[in-house]
């Protein structure tokens, strides 16, 4: 059972913007190779930060509204949210240590 949460346009507000803990959303799609490279890194981080930071994925192919709202034009893109506001954006595939460093800043 994965600790990664899958969010949609419908659940985004409740799960991410109104989340009680900080949240990170990975905007991805099936067609994107680098997204698949980052996926296992996020799985691991979701486990490590369980209960402290919510780590979620949003499929941009099935959910068009949310990516449009945040002006997503490259994937993978990670957006970090704290109290419903964007605190950081990471574009492209980055190593675990880099993402981990940014996650620590959210706590």
């Amino acid at each position, binding site marked *: 059972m994965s600790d990664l949460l899958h969010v949609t346009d419908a659940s985004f507000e409740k799960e991410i913007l109104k989340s009680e803990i900080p949240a990170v959303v990975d905007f991805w799609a099936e*067609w994107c*190779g680098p997204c698949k490279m980052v996926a296992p890194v996020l799985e691991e981080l979701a486990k490590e930060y369980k209960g402290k930071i919510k780590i979620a994925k949003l499929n941009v192919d099935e959910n068009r509204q949310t990516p449009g709202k945040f*002006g997503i*034009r490259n994937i993978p893109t990670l957006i970090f949210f704290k109290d419903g506001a964007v605190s950081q954006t990471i*574009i492209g*595939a980055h190593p*675990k240590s880099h993402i981990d460093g940014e996650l620590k800043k959210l706590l």
Partner: protein
Amino acid sequence: MIIGGGPAGLTAGLYAARAKLKTILLERFAPGGQILTTDWVENYPGFPDGISGYDLVDKMKGQAERFGLIIRSQEVQGLELVGEKKSVITDSGTIETRAVIIACGAAPQKLDIEGEGLLTGKGVSYCATCDGPFFRDQPVAVIGGGDTAVEEALYLTRFASKVFIIHRRDRLRAIQLIQERARNEPKIEFIWNTVALKISGDTAVKGLELKNVKTGSISTLPVEGVFVFIGYIPNSGLVRDTLSLDEWGFIKTDNEMATVIPGVFAAGDVRSKALRQVATAVGEGATAAYMAQRYIEGLGKGS
């Protein structure tokens, strides 16, 4: 120990594992490498109808693991390569080994012009298969004139309303077959002898400022996406001070993939060479693994 999980690293892993060497492959992401940004590979022998980049590396990974290759998702942070005992320092501990195959690959070269950094993620991209679908019915520009640039431009015609190929010379470097496809594609327009000076826009790409290198004239081109394919920079930072590199930073080896340090080999895109393809990477991976095996066998004897 193999560093890098693209086609070169996975093939080295397959050969080393079949040779019954205890082999660990370290990859900072999931295995794949740059081929994952390729939609369709049609020049790898054995797949006459082509194969997706993802499926191809997935098969390579499965094949290597079948023979016992251990793949770990770890990032290498340092290397101590001199001497018989070598150390690989990762984000989760140090691993000692006798031979190292470096197959870290390369990353897309940036233009290094105004607006590029600011607008990366806002219309500037280095991966057409990732980001092409965001540019449906919009005009985009591709910068570069090699195989990758023209192939990616062709891919982008599926989504974009128009694809401008901006090239600093008056002819393409891409192979003839790809050139012909591009010439026959009505959505593609070539802008020759031209370089990009600036990418304009604040929150999204609005256009490009161009300069014709022959006439010196400056012009603007309204586009909403800029895709950059002007070559690669090697991921050789870890060995910059220990191995011999060529003027662009690619690792120099002999014909058997050996670097200047005994027991250290390089394979794939990170190596100094003429052609960077899956077909060349796998051959080098196999050779590097074989030479590493011979090196390790030699360590125990005499000397």
